[in-house]
């Protein structure tokens, strides 16, 4: 065995660096089954060594044709479909849809129902962002936050389930209000239908744990040198580009645009509460991550205020048993956890909409992938994809 002289080894290493390596363009196929694509997104990347030259996203693997299906179902039947668009925050998808019908039909929703919608929407936001808070550090190599945040998210989902009967697909909104809650006894007895006993207290307590877990994730990941190295200054999205591509939600706010539909044009009584809209300065992966963590804290605060103020009263306005929606067109949008979610409904006066256009946040958020990924390093591609926090069901509809 010959001993390698360390000095000559160093010399060899230096020589290797100075050699011009030929890195011809190569097509790298990522997905549709790949952990970093969060579902069935396929990216066809042209790479030159470690550098991504261009990316062609291929979507549609989850396309279920909801816009066509909505044209053959009654409005009430479609509520069960729309909560499957972004399945991580199913409840939040239903609210703008029923609100659009309520607008067309001129129905006033009772305040208590509005508050329950608001609380459950914010819980959906928390559970969505907790998925992000657990999976994003994992993608960057930090696996501990996953266990903590996922456990707490499960508690939030349990609470959602105790009211709606479903962890992911509540199908809980009805035109004019909400469905009799699961804990409220038989739906035949219309007298005592309300939130399950102890729900509000349990939710209030759960918020304490949620806030604790966000602090934990903060301590475990945010200040971590490796996480910062992977995210700070990576995948910068300037505000002007974001607007041009229709990017909304935390991704837009991370780029410094203070635009939150809960403040701008809300279909739920957000005006009753005090909360901040966190924004970022640089629009990089780190800002997108920090903005979402802060949004969890704000949502927890909104839920607590709503629990303290929730009015009593009926859960549903008087509506005809057979929903005939007057002729007209309406667009109602709401701040979903992922961004602007909206429904454009054209009614011709019947029980079935003539046309439903679903504006989903992730579709627009993802449409800028070819722009933001061009010129990035392959490992940064994973960091950027994760920071955009999309759901393929929300992209494909």
């Amino acid at each position, binding site marked *: 065995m010959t001993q390698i002289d360390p000095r000559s080894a160093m010399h060899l290493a230096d020589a290797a660096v100075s050699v011009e390596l030929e890195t011809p363009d190569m097509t790298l196929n990522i997905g549709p089954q790949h952990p970093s694509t969060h579902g069935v997104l396929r990216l066809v990347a042209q790479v030159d060594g470690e550098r991504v030259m261009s990316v062609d996203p291929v979507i549609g693997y989850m396309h279920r044709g909801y816009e066509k299906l909505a044209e053959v179902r009654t409005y009430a039947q479609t509520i069960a479909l729309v909560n499957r668009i972004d399945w991580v925050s199913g409840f939040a998808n239903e609210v703008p849809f029923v609100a659009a019908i309520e607008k067309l039909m001129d129905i006033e929703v009772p305040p208590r129902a509005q508050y329950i919608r608001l609380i459950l929407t914010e819980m959906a936001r928390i559970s969505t962002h907790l998925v992000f808070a657990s999976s994003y550090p994992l993608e960057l190599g930090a696996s501990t936050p996953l266990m903590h945040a996922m456990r707490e998210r499960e508690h939030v989902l349990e609470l959602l389930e105790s009211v709606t009967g479903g962890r992911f697909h509540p199908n809980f909104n009805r035109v004019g209000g909400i469905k009799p809650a699961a804990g409220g006894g038989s739906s035949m007895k219309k007298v005592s239908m309300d939130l399950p006993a102890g729900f509000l207290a349990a939710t209030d307590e759960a918020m304490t744990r949620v806030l604790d877990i966000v602090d934990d994730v903060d301590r475990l990941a945010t200040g971590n040198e490796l996480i910062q190295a992977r995210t700070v200054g990576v995948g910068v999205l300037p505000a002007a580009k974001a607007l041009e591509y229709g990017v909304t939600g935390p991704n837009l706010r991370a780029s410094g645009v203070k635009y939150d539909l809960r403040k701008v044009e809300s279909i739920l009584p957000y005006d009753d509460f005090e909360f901040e809209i966190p924004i970022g300065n640089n629009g990089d992966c780190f800002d997108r991550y920090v903005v979402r963590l802060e949004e969890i804290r704000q949502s927890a605060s909104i839920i607590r205020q709503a629990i303290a103020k929730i009015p009593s009263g009926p859960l549903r306005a008087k509506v005809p048993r057979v929903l005939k929606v007057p002729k007209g067109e309406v667009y109602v949008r709401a701040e979903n956890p992922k961004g602007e979610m909206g429904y454009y409904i054209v009614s011709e006066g019947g029980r079935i909409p003539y046309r439903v256009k679903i504006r989903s946040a992730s579709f627009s958020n993802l449409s800028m992938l070819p722009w933001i990924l061009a010129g990035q390093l392959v490992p940064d591609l994973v960091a950027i994809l994760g920071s955009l926090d999309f759901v393929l069901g929300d992209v*494909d509809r």
Partner: protein
Amino acid sequence: MTDSPSEAEVMESGEGTEGVSASDVSALAEELGALVGATAWSDNFGVIRLEVERDNWVAAAAKLRGRGLELFSWLSAIDWSREVEVGEQVESPDDLDERFEVLCRLSSVKNADAVHLVAVVPKDDAQLPSLVGEFAGAEWHEREAAEMFGIDFPGNPAVDKHLYLPDAFEGNPLLKSFPLLSREVKPWPGTVDVEDMPTTENVEAAQDASGETDGGDE
């Protein structure tokens, strides 16, 4: 906010609070309509709808962008058709002018202002200049409208490439004349589970029978 309670009521129909009042909306509709040279404008439940000529489509979008409506929200189309394979007919099919309407929603990020820019596209010449030069985000939305409705968007570099549909797919699924293939093969099980698919007769019969209720389960 307006002083007139009736206008406030109109705006707040259904749900809580609105960022703008009715009178603001119509003033804005008028201002923006004049700005882009719209042939017709209206506001439906606070949604401003500006109809423009096809030649004016890109220029109108550019002007609105300059006016502060810089968030490209979405673009899609409606197929106004007499022939309906599945779903609901229009109210009076005989009077219907067969056409596509392409809608593009632009909104402000400073306030609640937003506009639906609408172009009427005839079916025998289904094309509309692409907005990609103005809003890069229009590319995917136009590709979706192209494959779903068969509308061409000259200027969009990838308009012929399917976005959602498999490459070999033929037809434009969101056309009213396009059947829902799964129902051709098998009747919808929801029909027996829930209720008959509504026709005009059974809707009226059901309404006569039940009248107003306090909203039971569907």
